[in-house]
């Protein structure tokens, strides 16, 4: 397809969107069509669907009759609060006819994801923070049910030890990173993704739970926060300039090894700019710039120093 054709298509799309957006309006005052609900609510549904997998919801917060906001609270719509009107689904079906469906949940189901999520957001809109709409999961048509199992007494995504596996179903690149030699303890089931990221969306970069990446790191690593008398500029700006928090082949989850990591920014005359080669290994002339902790053999205070003589981050 030629460039001119592409340009015409794009122009037509833009013109069409402008026209449609200007002319499209809700029809005022249209009467809403009535739909049929089941005769007896959950009792109707459980007649056919009374299996353990369904019964399990009665061990969860969604099935608390004394909570007026719960789907099974007084006057609420029980199963049909989430699955939609089931009158037609539960009615007699003529031979050869397909039974009218109810809403099923999951991105593999026929019900559009936005329609599924609208059922959940009908109650949980205020709970899921302020960044869902237009966020990565919303834009990616991720269904609430892709992560949450409402019928399970213990939702795997809400447990620290099992949450990462739920996330890794889609975020396989990140799972791969957590299997590197040095990583946060995801592989050991001791840390959850939601400790750093908000899966429901946030207005922050990468959906961090706090306003910035650094603020998120300081939640557990407050000793790095400072402020210090002598700051290390990249530390104050972005921990990710030196660290790969999902995992790295290098100790400390560094993006690369010292001294090369440090020499990618430091070029002062003297030892910072000297090329360190394999002659400095333990089998050659052991070099303090390569071995042990490399630059940190002396420049221990790489995150900043509060010592009056610490301008070179050695005190």
């Amino acid at each position: 397809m030629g460039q001119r054709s592409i340009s015409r298509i794009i122009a037509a799309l833009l013109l069409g969107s402008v026209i449609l957006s200007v002319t499209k309006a809700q029809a005022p005052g249209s009467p809403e069509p009535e739909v049929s609900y089941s005769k007896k609510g959950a009792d109707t549904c459980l007649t056919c669907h009374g299996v353990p997998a369904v019964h399990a919801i009665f061990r969860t917060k969604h099935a608390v009759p004394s909570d007026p906001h719960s789907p099974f609270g007084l006057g609420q719509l029980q199963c049909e609060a989430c699955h939609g009107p089931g009158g037609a689904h539960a009615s007699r079906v003529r031979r050869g006819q397909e039974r009218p469906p109810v809403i099923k949940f999951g991105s593999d189901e026929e019900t559009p994801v936005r329609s599924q999520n609208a059922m959940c957001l009908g109650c949980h809109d205020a709970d899921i923070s302020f960044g869902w709409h237009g966020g990565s999961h919303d834009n990616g048509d991720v269904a609430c049910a892709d992560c949450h199992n409402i019928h399970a007494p213990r939702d795997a995504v809400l447990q620290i030890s099992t949450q990462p596996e739920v996330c890794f179903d889609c975020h396989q690149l990140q799972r791969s990173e957590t299997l590197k030699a040095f990583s946060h303890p995801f592989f050991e089931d001791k840390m959850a993704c939601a400790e750093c990221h908000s899966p429901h969306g946030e207005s922050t970069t990468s959906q961090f739970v706090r306003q910035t990446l650094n603020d998120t790191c300081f939640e557990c690593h407050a000793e790095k926060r400072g402020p210090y008398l002598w700051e290390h500029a990249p530390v104050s700006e972005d921990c990710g300039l030196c660290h790969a928090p999902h995992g790295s082949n290098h100790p400390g989850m560094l993006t690369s090894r010292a001294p090369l990591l440090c020499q990618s920014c430091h070029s002062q005359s003297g030892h910072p700019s000297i090329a360190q080669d394999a002659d400095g290994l333990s089998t050659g002339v052991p070099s303090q710039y390569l071995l042990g902790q490399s630059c940190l053999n002396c420049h221990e205070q790489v995150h900043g120093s509060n010592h009056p003589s610490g301008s070179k981050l050695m005190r």
Partner: protein
Amino acid sequence: MNASKVPNIVSIVALVVSATMASVAHSQVVDTSEWACNFCPFESGQRSDFSVGVSTVSDSSAYFGDATGYSEEGAYANVDGSGSYTNDGHRLNWQIEDLGLDSRYAELSGALQGTFGYNVAFRQIPQHRFFTTESIFRQSVANSLSLPAGWVRAPDTSGFTELNTSLARTNIESDRTMLEVGGRYMPSSRFRFSVNYRRHERDGLDIYGGSYFTQSSLLPGTFDYVTDVVDFGIRYSGNNGSVSLRYYMSDFDNSDARLEWENPFTSSPGAETAALARPPDNSFQQLSLSGRYRFTQYHAVAAFSAALGRMEQDESFLPYTTNANLTVSQLPRSSLDAQIDTINLATTLTAKLFDGARIKLAYRYNERDNRTAQDIWTRVIADSFVSGESETNIPYSFERSTLNLSGHYDLFDTVRVSGGYDRKTIDRDFQEVAEQTEDSGWGSLRWRPYKALQVNFKAGASERDIDRYNEAFAATLGQNPLMRKYNLAYRYRRFGELTIAAALGEAPISLTINALYADDDYTQSQLGITAADDLRVTADMSWALSDNSSVYVSGGYENMESEQFGSELFAFPDWRASNNDRFYTAGTGFNVRQIGGKFDLRMDYTRSDGTSEIDVASAAGGLSRFPNLESTLDYLRVRLSYHRSNRLEFLINLRYQRFKATDWALAGVEAGTIPVVLTLGADPYDDEILIFGLGVRYRMGVPATAQSE
């Protein structure tokens, strides 16, 4: 159109209609007077399950003990469990994991649902770095490391005549514990109050570099950190939106202001001891207001967030030096009285222009305003001599803003096109680049010809430009004028991402492939990083063989390369280094339940291989290739359970782990190997352990006829 597809299309249309009607229908009044829920098995009373067991670990291992708690060879008793109690709307849930290990977790949560809720949680994570380290230092007084009796100082490690007899095993390990207490109260459906308190404690031993200008000792220093965090929030929810006010406070306390140690090397008079400053006590407070409103037209949602914060630190300074023989000027002040104000603003607007078309406009602003006063300091170098130079502390500040415009349009039912543009600006104080902008554009295509196949392709580019690299300022820092720090340098990036998700035929087999590529060029850099690229690929297949069995296979590959230049002569580039990190991972496993109606069997195997290659080529030394840095992990886990009854279950667990690393920074580096650095002699990891466990699980409160979950 194939007539056989008509019923499916009708079903799809019916589903969409029903979903639409559902959102409409919730507004209609439904007569639920006969909805008695007689068949609903509401929970009442208690239900719990416990498992107790014994495990034996074949060998001690710092690597495998890290975070797991299985650090020492021997037997471990363990308890896990969970349970609930419900009574007329009151719910209590509890959970314990690994109670017998140092990696234990316990939580208790409860609620009168719809009115209030609370939770208490305790978590402990052990950290083990090395079990192969040895040190000559003794700690008789907190945070003071002394030399052993009879120690003979020398100008380098070859002269440490008492070294071998003075070394003592010193494991580098620590513990992190977290306690959390929280509650929420909903006096009405519109108001929600929440409060959360968290206490992080971390203490143990870590490695610190104690420098003496031309010599250094790696020190096994103790540390003891406590961080208290309080989070308090009020939320009001209206019909079309909500607003939330939150207060956050984090207070860090370090029980030790300094780490002191005796110099094992020959030193100038008075420099026999030295002291490092420990991370100072600090605090951070933040007040934030956020809100969201849903408009009826265009399904638009507007959200905003504004947060004001302040970091403070006012720990008393250590003196310039511990060397009483040096004459130094008085400190300009006794403490830093540091203050950093932060401002974080964000606003987003999303709207559905018409069917199938959505746009999003977002703006974010972050400011770090370092208001710490500057002063002139007279540095003492390594407690050995006064530098003679005056230095001024630099309070780094920046302003960062991002404007994002994105949207998507469903061209057809099976095709969605998306695109976006970002503009990011950063203004910095006291750095080589004062103004920096980055323009990024991307486009993506999603093709879903049928439910069982989805292909996503995304590609884009970004250009990061700078107003100018201030070489004069860089010169004041002693930098080569040709150096371009990679976070400040001009950069052109291209990236692409492909995801394929498929369900194969009628069999319940799902296949997912992800690939990502990014390429960075620093075309205006002569020194520093000049190029970098990253390729990652993963593939995952899972197959539900039956209702009770499944198998999976997964794999991954990553290759990261970068190139950087340096100059030994403080002129033009005269050496080059290349870094190449490769990583492979593969995994497989199966899960079979209800074998013979009684047994469950699960097996998981993971292997990962990491390799880092470093080459350095210099005019002086020619090409030098470092030995590869390798790491290999093999992990196998088998779990067999026998369901004696609905309540009683017997468990067998087998876990095998092997981790081996080659690391030239540690290999062959004993305590006295480096002439001017006394190390701790850590060895590269080479651990292999087998864990065998037996356990019993018992469920209480389960009806005898209930099936297992």
